């Protein structure tokens, strides 16, 4: 019998494309200087969704060292859920719309024992939703012990790389949630979804305005659920969004400024992979110790605000 409090992230991995382009070389709406000021020296570009996902997933599985029972594919962009058919472009019909990345990845990685599903419609918070579903499956199903969550997104070549003052990078990430031997124990999760903001182009300004108060509401929600106080959070793992937003969010949540993890690298905003990239870097740089409470937060168009609290274990 597994105690639900033992469930957590057993392994994680990320993948970035080889090419990093300076912000001056990217198509953006705002001036390059403004975007540099927001913490975006450039972006990782020319990524291939399938490759990024496969690379990250293979590493995560290898690190986990367990068989995978469920594979959850989570991407923000609709196109990222579709794998290109082997049928030549000119001969493709509607059937090519049913070529799913999750299925391709299962085949690619030989995960024959896994069942496959996808998570969508949650923008940059898709990976959070995938992890939430993964944990719920492990809690609900005795036969499910290890769930692989994979997320990858890449923008088309020459696409506008700026979204609401954020510069978007291509990236892939994966993590395995398990019943045991976890690096990060799952402490609590809270999500606030507001369908009111579904029309992103029409409601850009309202979304920007709603971001902070709803983010604070969401963080308060997860603290309440877990019985924690803001001061109990040892480290906030940011995403790659506009860096000027984090000190504001820290203040709104009542968490001391110095508990915001300061990444050494700039990854841009990689949609789904941000939090895992930062978490991986924090661990590699020795910023994590056993028993630390970590707060992860993500916002995704839709709109959904997600806050996750993890606790590092001795294995970290």
């Amino acid at each position: 019998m597994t105690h639900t409090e033992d469930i957590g992230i057993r392994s994680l991995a990320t993948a970035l494309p080889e090419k990093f382009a300076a912000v001056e070389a990217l198509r953006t709406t705002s001036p390059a200087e403004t975007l540099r000021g927001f913490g975006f020296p450039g972006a990782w570009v020319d990524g291939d969704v399938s490759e990024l996902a496969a690379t990250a997933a293979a590493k995560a599985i290898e690190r986990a060292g367990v068989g995978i029972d469920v594979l959850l594919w989570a991407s923000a962009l609709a196109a990222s859920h579709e794998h290109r058919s082997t049928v030549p472009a000119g001969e493709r019909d509607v059937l090519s719309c049913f070529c799913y990345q999750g299925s391709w990845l299962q085949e690619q990685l030989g995960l024959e024992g896994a069942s496959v599903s996808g998570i969508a419609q949650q923008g940059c918070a898709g990976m959070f939703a995938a992890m939430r579903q993964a944990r719920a499956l492990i809690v609900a199903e005795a036969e499910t012990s290890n769930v692989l969550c994979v997320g990858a997104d890449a923008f088309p070549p020459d696409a506008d790389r700026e979204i609401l003052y954020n510069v978007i990078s291509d990236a892939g990430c994966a993590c395995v949630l398990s019943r045991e031997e976890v690096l990060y124990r799952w402490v609590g999760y809270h999500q606030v979804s507001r369908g009111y903001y579904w029309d992103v182009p029409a409601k850009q300004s309202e979304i920007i305005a709603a971001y902070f108060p709803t983010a604070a509401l969401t963080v308060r929600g997860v603290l309440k659920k877990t019985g924690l106080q803001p001061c109990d959070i040892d480290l906030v793992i940011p995403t790659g969004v506009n860096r000027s937003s984090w000190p504001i969010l820290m203040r709104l949540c009542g968490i001391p400024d110095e508990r915001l993890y300061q990444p050494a690298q700039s990854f841009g905003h990689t949609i789904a992979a941000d939090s895992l990239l930062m978490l991986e870097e924090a661990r590699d740089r020795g910023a994590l110790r056993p028993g630390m409470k970590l707060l992860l937060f993500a916002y995704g168009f839709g709109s959904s605000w997600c806050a996750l609290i993890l606790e590092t274990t001795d294995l970290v």
Partner: protein
Amino acid sequence: MKILLTGYTGNLGPAIARELAAHAVHAMVRDAGSAPVMAHVCNVEGSLESLPASLTGEIELIIHAAASTSFLAPLDDLRIANVEGTRHVLDFARTCPRLKKVVHVSTACVCGMQSGDIPEERLRRPPAFVNAYEQSKWETEALVLDAGLPAEIVRLSIVAGSERDGAVRRIGALHHTLYWLWKGLIPMMAGSPDTPVDIISTEFAAKVVTACALAPLSTGRIVQGCAGRSSPSLGELLDHLTSLFSAKSPAWQRGSITPPMIVDGETFALFEQTVEQSGDLLFRRVCQDSKAFLPGLLHPRRYETSRADALVGPARPDWRNLAELVTSHVIDSRS
């Protein structure tokens, strides 16, 4: 009584004039065509720089309500409009042999960034002002009090609108802020939930000004036409606005729009800085409108009102009703 009234076409002017229906009012206006028409009011075209010499022999009371309320205008411009404009009025007053009193309409914001209880007295220069408007009005008060004239001052807090229908003649910082709030475009407000927000109706403001004007002279007297202890706190006001918005909009009712957070000055400054950095035009506008009104909330204070209470009684219009009427007016007129 023969009264000279400035600021007749402003927010407060018509309401003051209505209170003076038993008197002969000469209203200084730049353009008589755009001035309200009242039987007892004679519109006199001109400006503060050229007050009509022909009236000096008749005027017994001057109510100086004209002012520039462009909170964000440069100090030099505001000094010309407010300080120098008042200097012209005072110079004119000196030439009126029958003059009994000059009443200068000021603002409760002359206390600048001072917090705590604000007395109905001459205020020392505060350590700092929230904006140049406040400074120009403080300097104007000093000018009036040192003029050696039979002068009194009425300080008014935020005149929100009519307590009958919420109407306002000129949309100001408060009204813009209300509109942005309604649209869900203000993520945070500077202050604390307990900060009093002193709002009054146009009618109440006019009543205090005219009661002061018609009362026996007490040179140098300062009356604060404010809600004082009847003011809502910022938290109460936001809660009330949220319930008003909820009655008008499913998005508010369902909680799809999260009300703004009340934050400290540093957090608000960080947000403003981000907006400035982004160059986002709409948010710059929102911040600019908020900037004129919200920073005052960082300096919580309660205005003493015993003199105003003595003149018009201690009762104040219900702020909830006033907020509802003004909010409806703002939403309807901008939608």
